[in-house]
Every structure is written in structure tokens, then in C-alpha cells.
């Protein structure tokens, strides 16, 4: 028994790190196996949805496989002046390219269905990318036998898996055109503009002029019910410019990531432009506000990354009424009767009309 103890001691002394690495690699391998399964299911869902909705003449599988490998190169940031416009241009080109691809893949799809298909393909693309990154670190770790290479991916693996699972459920939501958690802001705006005439403003955005607690509210959201986030930055700028900056306040409503321990659907209030994404819209909104010194308020609905891209949960849906109450409170406290205000519901408006 003593000899056995010494053998184990010596083995662990010299090979402890290697054994640790093997355990880590095994863990990463298990997750990689799951990611591969999710990615393949995602591809299958995308192909089936394109076939069902788009009714293409030829098999779209090859084109979808090509689409999944698309990439976007961000603008050079060595000279940051004007980088926002360069980024916007690249994102516009990417958007147009995606829309054209979807049209070619699914010629029979109408605008709403095409938007949903685009979202479906983007979710499949994200899954493919996550799988490739994890596979890269796994293979590199195996090749180099470096604990530190494997550790990098092993440490963030739970978060990566959570995101991949979120995209997997998002795929179904996008394929069926179901509202998602990210659309909470758009849903608030849709409820406020219900029964009022809407008109198009900026790209993929609508606005309605709504009497609100003795004020005039310009309610903005992305145009639904197709999967769409629109360009709320342009929309808010346009409304401000049309009113010569005569806007008492802007209230932005968006879904925000919650911290562990916070309740799903919790509503919080603050200041600043509540909008995610690459930052182009936030920049435009802030520029317009600074120009006319307009105060900006934000109301957020808390949810985790999984809930943000998967079908809308009841808790988030129920919190919409609380948000409307908060918005009402903000406007009553911060503006006078007869003032003009902007209420912008931010987020993907898939499955939400107006």
C-alpha cells in the first residue's frame, strides 16, 4: 500500500497538470459535442424554414452553408474620427447583402417572412461561429498540450453554452415569427400606439402621434411584425429636427441584461440612451440630444441573455404594464402639459405589430 501511495504521489507530481488538462479537455469535448448537435439542428431548421416559406426552385442547402460563413470586417480605428459613419456604412452594406441573399434563397417570402428568415439565418450563423471558436481552442489545446490555451475556453464555457442554448431557442422563435424577450421595448411602444395612425419614419421604423397625459407623444418603434430593429437613431433625430428641437424629453425603453439574483421582468429607471447594438444609433441619438439640450430618460426591463433571444416569457409580457406606468410617471414629473415628448421602444419587433 505504501508503494502504491508513493507511485500515486510521484505520478501526480510530474503529471498533475497534464491530468488536469485532460479533465478540462474532456469537459470542453463534451460541450463541443453538444454545440455540434445544436449547430446541426440550427442548420436543419434554417434549411427547412427556407424551403417551407421561400419555396425555392433549387435546394437552398448549399447557399445556406455559404451564408453561414459570411463575415464582416469592422472599420479601421487608428484614426477614430468619423468611425461611426464608416461602421454604419459597413453595417448597411451587410444588411443589404443579407436581404439580397434571403431574397435569392426564398423568392416566395413576403417582407415579414424575409425579415424573419434573415433573423433565423443569423441565429444559425451565430451557432456555427460559436461552435468553430470552441473547436478551435479545443484542437489548439490538444495540439500544443498547453493548459493555458485550454483554460481560456474552459473558464468561459458555461457562459458560452448558455448563449448557444439561447440562440438554439431563438432559431425556433425566428422561424415561427414569435415575439422574443428583446422585443419588450417595442411591445411597450406598440401598446402605446395601438389605435393611432402610424407612419413610416427612417429605415424600418414607424412613428405615431399619441395624446399622452395632456402631452403630445411621438411613439417610435421598429416596423413589425417581421424581425427588425430598424434605425431608431435616425427616427429620433428626424422627429427632433422636424420639431426644431422643441421636445421636452425623450424616454427610451429597452430590454437590458439582468444580473444573477435579479428578478426576470424587473423594471428600472435611469438616464441615458437605452439602446444596444454596435453603437451607431446611440451615437446619433446623443448627438441630436446634445444639439438641442434635450434630457433623456431610460426605462429598462431586466432579462438574461437566454430570455432576450428566446420566445417572450410571461413575466416579461406582464412587466409591460409596469413599464407604461413608469413612463407615465416620468413624463408627468419631468414635463408640463402641452409639451412634446418622444417615447422610443427599442428592440427586435419580431411577432409584434403596431
Amino acid at each position, binding site marked *: 500500500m505504501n508503494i502504491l501511495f508513493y507511485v500515486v504521489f510521484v505520478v501526480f507530481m510530474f503529471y498533475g497538470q497534464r491530468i488536469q488538462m485532460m479533465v478540462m479537455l474532456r469537459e470542453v469535448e463534451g460541450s463541443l459535442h453538444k454545440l455540434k448537435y445544436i449547430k446541426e439542428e440550427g442548420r436543419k431548421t434554417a434549411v427547412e424554414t427556407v424551403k417551407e416559406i421561400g419555396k425555392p426552385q433549387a435546394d437552398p442547402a448549399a447557399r445556406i452553408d455559404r451564408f453561414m460563413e459570411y463575415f464582416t470586417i469592422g472599420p479601421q480605428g487608428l484614426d477614430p474620427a468619423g468611425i461611426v459613419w464608416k461602421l454604419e456604412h459597413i453595417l448597411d452594406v451587410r444588411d443589404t447583402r443579407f436581404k439580397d441573399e434571403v431574397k435569392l434563397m426564398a423568392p416566395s417570402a413576403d417582407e415579414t417572412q424575409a425579415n424573419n428568415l434573415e433573423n433565423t439565418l443569423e441565429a444559425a450563423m451565430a451557432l456555427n461561429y460559436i461552435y468553430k471558436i470552441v473547436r478551435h481552442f479545443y484542437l489548439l489545446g490538444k495540439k500544443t498540450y498547453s493548459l493555458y490555451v485550454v483554460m481560456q475556453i474552459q473558464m468561459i464555457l458555461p457562459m458560452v453554452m448558455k448563449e448557444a442554448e439561447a440562440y438554439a431557442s431563438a432559431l425556433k422563435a425566428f422561424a415561427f*415569427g414569435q415575439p422574443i424577450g428583446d422585443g419588450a421595448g417595442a411591445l411597450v411602444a406598440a401598446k402605446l400606439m395601438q389605435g393611432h395612425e402610424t407612419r413610416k419614419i427612417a429605415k424600418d421604423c414607424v412613428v405615431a402621434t399619441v395624446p399622452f397625459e395632456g402631452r403630445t407623444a411621438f411613439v417610435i418603434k421598429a416596423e413589425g411584425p417581421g424581425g427588425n430593429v430598424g434605425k431608431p437613431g435616425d427616427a429620433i433625430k428626424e422627429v427632433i429636427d422636424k420639431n426644431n428641437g422643441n421636445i421636452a424629453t425623450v424616454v427610451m425603453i429597452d430590454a437590458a441584461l439582468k444580473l444573477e439574483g435579479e428578478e426576470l421582468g424587473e423594471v428600472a429607471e435611469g438616464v441615458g440612451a437605452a439602446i444596444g447594438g454596435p453603437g451607431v444609433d446611440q451615437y446619433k441619438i446623443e448627438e441630436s440630444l446634445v444639439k438641442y439640450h434635450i434630457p433623456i430618460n431610460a426605462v429598462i426591463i431586466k432579462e438574461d441573455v437566454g430570455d432576450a433571444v428566446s420566445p417572450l416569457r410571461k413575466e416579461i409580457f406582464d412587466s409591460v404594464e409596469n413599464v407604461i406606468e413608469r413612463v407615465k410617471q416620468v413624463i408627468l414629473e419631468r414635463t408640463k402639459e402641452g409639451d412634446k415628448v418622444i417615447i422610443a421602444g427599442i428592440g427586435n419587433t419580431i*411577432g409584434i*405589430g403596431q
Partner: protein
Amino acid sequence: MTVENSSTQRSRVSPSALMVLFIMLVLSLAALLYGVWILDSYPDLAYIVLLFGFLGTAMAAYTLVQMRRRLSRLKIVISPVTTTIECKKCGFKNVREFQRGDYIFKAVEPCQKCNDKMLITAVYREVKEKEKARFPY
């Protein structure tokens, strides 16, 4: 209705690996029995046999449990999504399973009671969460 995307769950465990595990488990259990059998007559040998028997059984059982967990982890279950349709005039409400093409504020078929137009007022999923352990913070 339970929507789930794991209906075609494929078994990824190779039959040969399962066979090896099974043989290992049988041999380890046999070693355990044999160790108990010879404990009185050859105690030194019996301890070694019992040690290997325990180690073998533990390893085989652990690997089998891990395999089972790995397969069950492949499941991604999405709770059913429901659509609520409401008549604004008489308040008649109808809750049904989500159908492709449904969206919030879509005008649908006329009301069964007053024949006025009905609207989809809600589309959401209800997740039945497991009861969380009490957390004091």
C-alpha cells in the same frame, strides 16, 4: 404541446465502448465477490482484489453515469407558446396554441359572441421553473 428540438436524439455512445464498460463492471463486481470469498483464507490478496474491485466498479459506474448525463444534456426543451385573442367590444377571450403567422395586434377572425373584430393581444410562453432554494441575499 411541448415544442422541443431534440425529437431525433441520436445515441452517440459506441456499442464497443458500452461493451468494454459492461465487461469492466462485471469483472469488478466479480473481483469484489472473490475478495469477500477469500478474505478469511488469504487476507493480503483479498485486500488487493477488493481494492481493484472497488476502483473498477466506481470507474465503470462513473463513466456510465457521465454518458447518461451527456445524452440528457443534448435536450433543449422550449415551453409551449400561447396566443391570446381578445374581443375589444365584449371582452371575449380565447387562448390557443401559437400558429405560424400569429403576431401581437394582428386582427383575426370575428368574435363568436358579438361578431366584432378580434385582436391577438398576447403571445408568450410560460416556463414552469423548479422551486428555487431559499437564498438569503
